[in-house]
């Protein structure tokens, strides 16, 4: 990695990406994380507790969104702090057996603050699905060279 704090400015864009999500992805995340709450894989259970249907784990969205920062920084260990609020659920439609995504999460990032003394940059992420902000105050602090 070769990004230095001197070459960055507040407001600078670090890029964007689009994440396609399927019900299979939620099952994989449940297994990998150990979070087997049925609202993330069982339609009847999810609607029974008042949700519009199966929703993505907030931690799936948070974990997938930060990859934009990791790849930009060049080292996953450069992300020294990462926080978010979960404001809206991400409903994932059942598209099993088709090539379609059940939901799409759009992630973009910009430099929110620079701290020359600490050698860190704060990246502010905008994370949207179906036209709604699903994460708010999604901020990753990255240690730079």
């Amino acid at each position: 990695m070769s990004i230095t704090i001197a070459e960055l400015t507040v407001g600078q864009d670090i890029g964007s990406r689009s994440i396609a999500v399927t019900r299979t992805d939620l099952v994989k995340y449940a297994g990998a994380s150990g979070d087997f709450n049925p609202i993330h894989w069982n339609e009847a259970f999810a609607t029974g507790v008042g949700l519009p249907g199966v929703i993505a784990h907030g931690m799936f969205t948070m974990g997938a969104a930060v990859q934009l920062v990791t790849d930009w920084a060049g080292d996953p260990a450069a992300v020294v702090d990462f926080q978010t609020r979960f404001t809206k659920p991400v409903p994932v439609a059942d598209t099993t057996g088709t090539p379609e995504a059940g939901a799409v999460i759009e992630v973009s990032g910009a430099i929110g603050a620079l701290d020359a003394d600490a050698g860190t940059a704060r990246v502010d992420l905008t994370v949207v699905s179906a036209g709604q902000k699903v994460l708010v105050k999604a901020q990753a602090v990255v240690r730079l060279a």
Partner: protein
Amino acid sequence: MTINPDLQGRSYPAAEVYDVGREKIREFARAVKATHPAHFDVDAAKALGHSDLVAPPTFAIIVAQRADAQLIEDPESGIDFSRVVHADQRFTHHRPIVAGDRLVAELHVDGVRAMGGGAMITTRSEIFALARGAAGDSADVREPVATTTSSILVRGEGQ
């Protein structure tokens, strides 16, 4: 059922040890659609100065949610897990988590606030790595690895 306000300030000591394996890092990385080679290829991780595969930035949630389970499953807490909504989450890394780490988490209940008929509960997990070869319960040979904080909203009836 109402949330027990006496939960505030309660701590749960480090319980079981979580052994961080290479295949778990790879599995978790794939599950969050991470593609950085430092999660998959030991040589790529070493080229960046790490001793082994590096975990993704949110990997510590596995350890933190195991610690949270102690509170949620505590019969004194009054928490109905089917009414829990994750409200916010933060990870502060004191050093990267790498394959081979043996982690333990101490859980602290930092806040309990009534909200409507429910409650917002803020917990903090202090995650430590045990020194290589140390016994699972030796508290004096551990290194701070990460601090995670999490707020959950326990919805009241009709919320």
